[in-house]
């Protein structure tokens, strides 16, 4: 039964987590006190301190410090773990779940959390017209969409059973951990959200309470003494210096002005070449797949042979080695390494220009063709990659016109289908079923199926995987679906991101979170006495 993992009590979950985190913390006893300075690397400001409003990774760093959700992501186990909920019991074939809630969780304003907070928070997420990004995780709850459309005031599928117990009915069989570990589903205190200060001074259930925010410069949070996990957090203070510029971040890290720094491919190599810096790099296979997405409504991308030819024509291995500098794992198909269904024995497309040419000829394009390739300037999944691929495709007669756009425009173009091909990064986990649904023919372009790939056999496999009660059968189906995608090659499979975080030697307890490495549950982090930060 897969609910076993989820049923474990909070004490076990906490103990398990701590034990799992121990390797990173070596054999020392965690020290209480001190400060950690974790850089916010993705933008030059925090966009929104309301966790329901922002799904941006950078804002998530702060949200998981100040707020909490029903589940958290257990990086050691690679699965969601109970957090605000102490037990989750399914019934009716996995469509109805009963959650027991903590009775020892306090908001930073001193009030105890209860079932009403869960009901209110989830209802808020579905407020019509607000467009809360967290709404996507609640939409599977029965009656949620009606609230979102303004047809109802209350979500019919959420019922308060007691002071610390709620029952949630879903429209289909789900594993709620995959939905409710997302920080955008944080449980918030209504009385604080309704205050005018909410946008600037958040109040939550997390291990640290908000202290100071200098927009564009840093955010500081300090220890919350009534946090529900005994003995945690260790640190007195967490600071998030905002540093979007990688070259500046590099200098600041080397100068020991910050404690963590996410590394790009260039710096990954440089740090690995440095005898001291090399020792403190946390690596994780993230659940992001980078690919060139082809629009199957545009000729000749509707032809499988053409798409396969592209996969054969590109020397993906050398790009991963030399340009991504091994700060990535070569992709075989759509599912990344840490996600169930990934097949480690699968061989990627072989680099074989002759075969590519043959496939093109078979598809009636012996002289190749020309297409427009839209790209952003991202160093890992943007222009530099396109630049390296252009000469390779030219070898088999495929001519590329590049169109460079900003990331904000790229998303727009993808959602509207106004592209021939574009290169991008897609989140491909942690839930394999949801990830593979991306190519289900019922999935609209706007909720992932940007290629508009449609195949009845594939649909059947996924539908069965979604309803079966047999975990082995499900895994088998996921594997087959993933293998199907390999052959259909809806995209050029490029790589799965390897996220790398450099940290100072005095930092301990960092978690190798594959969903996003900068997302650290800060209560587990501690610093030893050699930390220079006061």
């Amino acid at each position: 039964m897969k609910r076993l993992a989820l049923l474990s009590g909070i004490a076990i979950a906490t103990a398990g987590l701590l034990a799992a985190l121990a390797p990173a913390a070596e054999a020392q006893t965690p020290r209480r006190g001190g400060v950690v300075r974790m850089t916010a690397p993705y933008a030059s400001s925090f966009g929104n301190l309301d966790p329901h409003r922002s799904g941006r990774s950078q804002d998530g760093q702060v949200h998981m410090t100040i707020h909490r959700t029903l589940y958290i992501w257990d990086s050691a186990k690679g699965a969601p773990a109970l957090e605000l909920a102490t037990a989750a019991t399914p019934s009716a074939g996995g469509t109805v779940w009963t959650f027991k809630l903590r009775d020892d969780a306090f908001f930073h304003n001193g009030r105890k959390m209860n079932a009403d907070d869960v009901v209110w928070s989830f209802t808020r997420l579905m407020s019509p017209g607000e467009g809360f990004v967290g709404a996507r995780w609640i939409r599977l709850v029965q009656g949620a969409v009606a609230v979102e459309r303004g047809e109802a005031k209350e979500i019919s599928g959420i019922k308060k059973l007691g002071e610390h117990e709620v029952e949630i009915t879903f429209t289909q069989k789900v594993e709620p951990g995959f939905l409710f570990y997302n920080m955008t589903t944080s449980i918030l205190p209504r009385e604080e959200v309704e205050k005018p200060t909410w946008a600037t001074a958040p109040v939550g259930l997390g291990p640290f309470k908000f202290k100071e925010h200098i927009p564009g410069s840093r955010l500081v949070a300090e220890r919350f003494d009534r946090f529900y996990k005994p003995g945690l957090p260790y640190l007195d203070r967490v600071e998030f210096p905002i540093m979007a510029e990688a070259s500046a971040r590099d200098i600041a890290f080397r100068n020991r002005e910050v404690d963590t720094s996410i590394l790009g491919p260039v710096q990954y190599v440089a740090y690995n070449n440095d005898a001291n810096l090399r020792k403190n790099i946390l690596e994780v296979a993230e659940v992001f797949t980078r690919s060139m997405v082809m629009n199957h409504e545009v000729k000749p991308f509707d032809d499988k042979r053409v798409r396969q030819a592209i996969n054969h024509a590109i020397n993906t291995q050398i790009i991963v080695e030399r340009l991504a500098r091994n700060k990535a794992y070569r992709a075989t198909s759509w599912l990344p390494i840490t996600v169930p269904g990934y097949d480690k024995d699968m061989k990627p497309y072989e680099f074989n220009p002759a075969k590519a040419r043959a496939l093109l000829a078979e598809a009636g394009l012996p002289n190749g063709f020309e297409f427009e390739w839209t790209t952003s300037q991202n160093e890992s999944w943007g222009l530099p990659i396109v630049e390296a691929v252009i000469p390779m495709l030219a070898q088999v007669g495929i001519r590329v016109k590049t169109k460079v756009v900003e990331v904000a425009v790229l998303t727009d173009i993808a959602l509207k289908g106004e592209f021939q091909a574009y290169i991008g990064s897609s989140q491909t986990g942690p839930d394999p079923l949801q990830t593979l649904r991306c190519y289900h023919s019922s999935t609209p372009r706007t909720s992932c199926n940007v290629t508009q790939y449609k195949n009845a056999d594939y649909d059947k496999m996924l539908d069965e995987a979604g309803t079966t009660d047999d975990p082995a059968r499900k895994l088998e189906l996921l594997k087959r679906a993933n293998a199907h995608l390999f052959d259909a090659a809806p995209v050029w499979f490029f790589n799965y991101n390897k996220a790398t975080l450099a940290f100072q030697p005095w930092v301990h307890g960092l978690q190798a979170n594959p969903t996003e490495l900068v997302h650290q549950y800060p209560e587990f982090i501690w610093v030893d006495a050699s930390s220079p930060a006061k």
Partner: protein
Amino acid sequence: MKLRANLAIGGGLTLLSLFVGVFGPWLAHTDPIMDANLMNAELPPSGEFWFGTDQQGRDIFSRVMYGAQISLTVGIGSQLINTAIGTTLGVTAGYWGGWWDDFVNGLTNLMLAIPSLIFALAIMAILGPGLTSLMIALGLTNWSYTCRISRAQALAIKSQGYVQAARVLGYGDMRIMFTQILPNTLGPIIVIATLGMGGSILAEAALSFLGLGVRPPSPSWGSMLSDARETITTAPWLSLFPGLAIFLTVLGLNLLGDGLRDVLDPQSRSRR
């Protein structure tokens, strides 16, 4: 007699960049785009790769040679647009006066008030990154000085005897503006355009840094420098050579502009 060293040095450097800009493709050993060889990534300068190679294994020397073309095109193109807009508005405003003059004056003040980098950033965000957008963005945002000066010249000249005489002789407005007024404004305008070219090349680099510059396949110095900024501690040659190319070219243009001002526009040294 004053030492015209700035003119000599500036002129020399500018000629050198122009030479590279025109003959860059012949000076380069390799194709700057198609000759990516990832096996040669980030090699330091050597006999084979004079300036080393970049992250993609491309010869930096060749790219700097090709880049001259792009950077100078941006500089010259944007200044041509600026000069065309500035002189047209300025001369007609000064010559015709009236509501048109008021309008042009207002517009000039408006352009002066919005920092040109920010205006260019907005235009680049609308048009999307690229060479043409860049020339347009930088060409639309820097014409106010040209406009002011040509207007002042037009005002000063239009009341002079020979212009009056031309009018009496029945010369049309256009002819008077083109044959009598425009030539007289040329000196200061050349100076502004020369200095402005340097400004455009730097603005291109700044926009590249902000993520909105000229974008390959054409390598521009600004985008090369911007791309190389992360390797400044580990592979400094990646940024050194495009950086030096920008520095020397802009330095040359600035010195040349100063020198030209002394020669062409001696009475107005302190105008700016």
